């Protein structure tokens, strides 16, 4: 199909746009380099020499973050599910059980065992829910910094003979896992509750169990809904892992950068590298997730990518 005059003009405008953008970017970069290297005397030699050590430190950050994130995802899913379940008041459950028992016994007196069993099941469910609520309240209601110090001190008390690196890693992974678990549980709860109740009803109607309905119907839809906040959580957690600097014995990116800065006095270089590497990780992560989101978009649902103008 021949391009219309309008389309030709638009594509020409687009080329000008791109050229302009490149020019501006290069200009800004050149200016920053000029300021940093020439006027401030930033040592490119130091950066060139020691960036591999920073990358190694970044690996530790990534490692701790990723482990904590995925264990936390398991915790978050279970807690989120527990907190999303609606429960009936105990009085109504017991009343229903009583009516049922009376009907079954045909006028005879129903056994006490049945009621004890119901009470026990209800009690466990209630306890699990309240525990989950309390957990989220504690995690959300206290600073991560304090959580890390708290876990760290606990590790120091209970495992005083452990290698300091291991102590630090243990404390870091536990604190970050617990923290992200609490936040992810809210993300999952939102996702699970957003999936239409008719979806669950329909899956139960074809004979799927409660877990089957969750596994095959609710989760696949909920996960699609919560990919953006889950990505946020991963990036947030990576940045939060810099708080492990307080432990000192784990050479993650921020800790390493700080110690380099104060040992070599290449302070600007050190923090420029730290900042650069954090960006080097977080920006591609966002891009990859964007791709995943497009890949698993449900056709026909929501705003169609092809029809959406990019403003």
């Amino acid at each position, binding site marked *: 199909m021949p391009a219309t005059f309008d389309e030709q003009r638009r594509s020409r405008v687009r080329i000008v746009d791109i050229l302009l953008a490149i020019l501006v970017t290069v200009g800004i970069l050149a200016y920053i380099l000029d300021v940093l290297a020439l006027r401030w005397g930033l040592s490119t030699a130091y950066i060139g020499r020691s960036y591999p050590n920073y990358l190694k430190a970044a690996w530790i950050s990534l490692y701790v973050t990723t482990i904590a994130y995925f264990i936390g995802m398991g915790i978050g899913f279970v807690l989120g599910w527990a907190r999303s379940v609606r429960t009936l008041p105990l009085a109504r459950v017991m009343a229903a059980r009583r009516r049922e028992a009376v009907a079954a016994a045909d006028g005879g007196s129903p056994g006490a065992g049945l009621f004890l069993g119901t009470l026990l099941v209800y009690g466990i469910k209630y306890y699990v829910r309240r525990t989950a609520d309390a957990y989220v309240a504690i995690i959300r209601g206290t600073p991560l910094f304090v959580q890390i110090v708290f876990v760290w001190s606990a590790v120091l008390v209970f495992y005083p003979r452990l290698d300091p690196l291991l102590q630090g890693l243990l404390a870091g992974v536990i604190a970050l896992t617990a923290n992200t678990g609490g936040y992810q549980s809210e993300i999952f709860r939102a996702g699970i509750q957003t999936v239409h109740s008719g979806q669950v009803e*329909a899956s139960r*109607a074809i004979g799927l169990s409660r877990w089957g309905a969750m596994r095959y119907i609710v989760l696949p839809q909920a996960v699609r809904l919560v990919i953006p906040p889950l990505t946020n959580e991963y990036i947030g957690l990576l940045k939060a892992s810099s708080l492990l600097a307080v432990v000192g014995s784990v050479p993650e990116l921020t800790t390493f950068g700080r110690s380099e800065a104060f040992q070599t006095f290449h302070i600007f270089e050190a923090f420029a590298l730290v900042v650069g590497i954090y960006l080097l990780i977080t920006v591609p992560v966002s891009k990859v997730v964007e791709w995943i989101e497009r890949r698993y978009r*449900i056709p026909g649902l929501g705003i169609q990518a092809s029809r959406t103008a990019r403003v």
Partner: protein
Amino acid sequence: MIRVEELEKHFGALHVLKGVSLEVQKGEVLVIIGPSGSGKSTLLRCINLLIEPDSGRVFLDGTQVNRRDIRPEWVRQQVGMVFQSFNLFAHLTALQNVTLGPIRVLGTDPTTAGAQGRKLLARVGLADKADAYPAQLSGGQQQRVAIARALAMNPKAMLFDEPTSALDPEYIREVLDAMAALARDGMTMIVVTHEMGFASEVAKRILFMDAGRIIEEGSPEEIFHSPKQERTRMFVGKILR
């Protein structure tokens, strides 16, 4: 085939079913009509145990099924249900919607389930829509996929909860045709609907429900043209006009 005795259901202070009893023979089509809030949907959901009745008995093929020692999932596999709002699984294609039950619940192998699923989609006239997602289908097409999905479990009976009320008028015919074809094939059906044409054509018996009770029962002729109860007369008068 299906027998219900003295069914009672409360939602909090609301007394939704006040001792409902009914029986449907194998191959029979029973239509239930009644104003909204009369307990029709709740009754259907009590039959396949999507809702647990407070008291009363539900029998399937002579066996009481609302008992502690019978898994409700087992009952639901044998009684298909079609919903007012279709409730197709939004993230699955039409074919996947139909084959999910056989594969995950019955353990049919995917190839066999796929072949059966395509046959069922063809039966409701949607052979060419197997790979479409629900959001890409019209309401009528979605409801027909939902019928195929329920049929895929090879149920002994089917429940329809106002299957055409959410449809644009132009799509109602195709869904009713699919249901009529099903009835001709000898499927046992309980249908909540206000489609008088369909009821007269397909149903032998019609129940009129109001305020949690069955008020009147009769042939379509009797219910629509010479109802005995005053409440039935008023309701029928409103929907026939």
